[in-house]
């Protein structure tokens, strides 16, 4: 399935966290634990006890060799 993603995978969620920094750290750690390496927090907004966060894992960057060009099987 991941081979068919055009560029990136975004996940939006709300995390319980004491600070924006904590939420950011937890979010990135979570995505990395799932095996994504090219990870960033696109947007984060903390308010009191929770943070709304948009996490991104780039599957393909511009200039990459895209698996989807080759029919999704990478060959």
């Amino acid at each position, binding site marked *: 399935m991941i081979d068919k993603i055009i*560029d*990136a995978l975004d996940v939006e969620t709300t995390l319980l966290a004491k600070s924006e920094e904590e939420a950011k750290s937890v979010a990135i750690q979570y995505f990395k634990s799932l095996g994504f390496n090219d990870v960033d927090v*696109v947007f984060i907004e903390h308010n009191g006890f929770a943070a709304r966060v948009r996490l991104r894992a780039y599957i393909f960057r*511009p200039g990459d*060799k*895209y698996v989807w060009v080759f*029919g999704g099987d990478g060959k």
Partner: protein
Amino acid sequence: MKFVLFPLDPVHDVALKMLNRELVKRKHQVILLPPDTKMEEVIELCQREMPDFIMVSRTVGYGAAELLARFIDMLDAAGLRDKCKVVVGGKAITKELAAELGYDAGFGERTSWEEVIAYVEGRQMEKEKLKVKKNKRDITQGYTYRVHEPTFKQLLDKITDQILDWVKDKTSPAIERVKIRERMLEGEDLIEEYLKFCDETVVSYFKKNLLPKKVRFITREESKKFDQLIKSLKLDDRILRHTLDKPLVFVQYGTGCPFMDAMHIKVSEAWGADGVLHFDPSWGARCEGLLEGLLAHEEDGSIITLENLKLIKSSLDVSTLWCVRAHRGLNTPETILLAARAGADLTKINMVYGSLNGGTDPERLTVDGVYALKLAAKYNLPFDIPTNEELGGVPAPKAFAGMLVVAHLGVKLNAKPILKPLFCYSPDVMINDYMKDNYIDYNVAKVIALRQIMDAPIWPGEPIGFMTHTEDRIQSAMTTALHAALASSLRLDAITIASTDEAYARGAITVSARIDTLRAIAEAFRFFGQAKIEPTKRAEEYAQMIVNGIYETLEKVAKREDFVASLYEGLFGTREEGANPGRAGRGTVRKC
């Protein structure tokens, strides 16, 4: 025909009421039952009335399938199933579910009443007519380019005559290259001649096969596979504008890779974009000469080569308008030539913006710009004139004076200009506190002012809402949608929109971020439709202030009797205002 319309639902019956309206209009006999009617009562009624169609509606809810199945069983037991056609409709209904439950037809979400009427009247083919047909538009059609006020016309005539007189005995490496390139495209082998006018980066590429940093070749195999992929993609035409005629919606691409660009374009088309703009890398604009071949790189902006442009063109839907920007760099005339050869519909030229935002030297870009305008006329490419120097802080009246000079010059050279004011919360607005309690007045004022001066198409960008976007997806989509609604309210010809990644600087724009704003705009257009956003009376006051400012600027430039000197000396914007004359190509203009 006779119909019984039965909402198998405790509350909801809107769809059936709409169908009732249309069936009655067509002189059919209809019995519309209220929600919460018992099935037994419906059966009894149908036995008495013997309708041709029993139409059942059901929204989502627990046990919906069981209820619908029970109703069919009851019809069967009452001997009605074979005598009436039974149709079911509702959000969660699919054709498959309807068939499985024993219904003659099922209509789900996104069904129009026209489709249902066509079905019951036996006109299934009518559905074809409901399909959207997108056509390519000429944005400039219907405009006269007349300058309304004689005082403005006199000033613009004087300035543009002076420019044409000044450039007539001048040439540049870009002009020499484009002349050679034209002959090369006719089959002549003139690469050695071409390279005499190029920087080392381009020379090394051709002579030593050295690629600039982060640039890679796209292989023939990749290209072949990509071509197959593009040809296999099918999409239904979609228009964002609802009942509106304008504005056309453009998306600017330039991921760095033509494959990624093409995929972003295809998705944008699928979600309703009318046009796309090619955004080139900034280093390309500061380098004499262009590369060749299918090339991708890892940074913003996609490399201008004829092969890259042709690949993009091959991916475009026939209805999609395509603008290739040529406005600011050392390859301005040549870009227009390649754009025309690749089949572009539009281009972008503005000597003032291009030379005042730290880009190209004003003298050089004036010489190249005039030649570029002649090429735009020769190849019938309407050109838009951006005023993005406003983003640096240049006040709108000065930026607009420059835009109008280029527009009038274009008209004199038989090209077709499109005015492109910035439509946003710009530094000019922030510094001068022009939009205290709304983001409407000063943007409206810009349009009123321009319309007061010249009869020309207006296409704000680039993109609309710029500087108000944040990294928040909802906020960015909302900002874009509201600016789009304002543009439609003013009946503008086109807009260039942002993605919701526009303010995100740590990575590439994703295609999902493009869909966000396209969806938001469709909703805004649907919400406002033919209704209008009402500015406050300040808009008229600001408009007059802008008109006066344009006049003052043009008067000073005309009096200076030297357009290029006016650019260097800050008449179109001072350094303090953020207008910094560019240095690229300085000292390269030659007498010819």
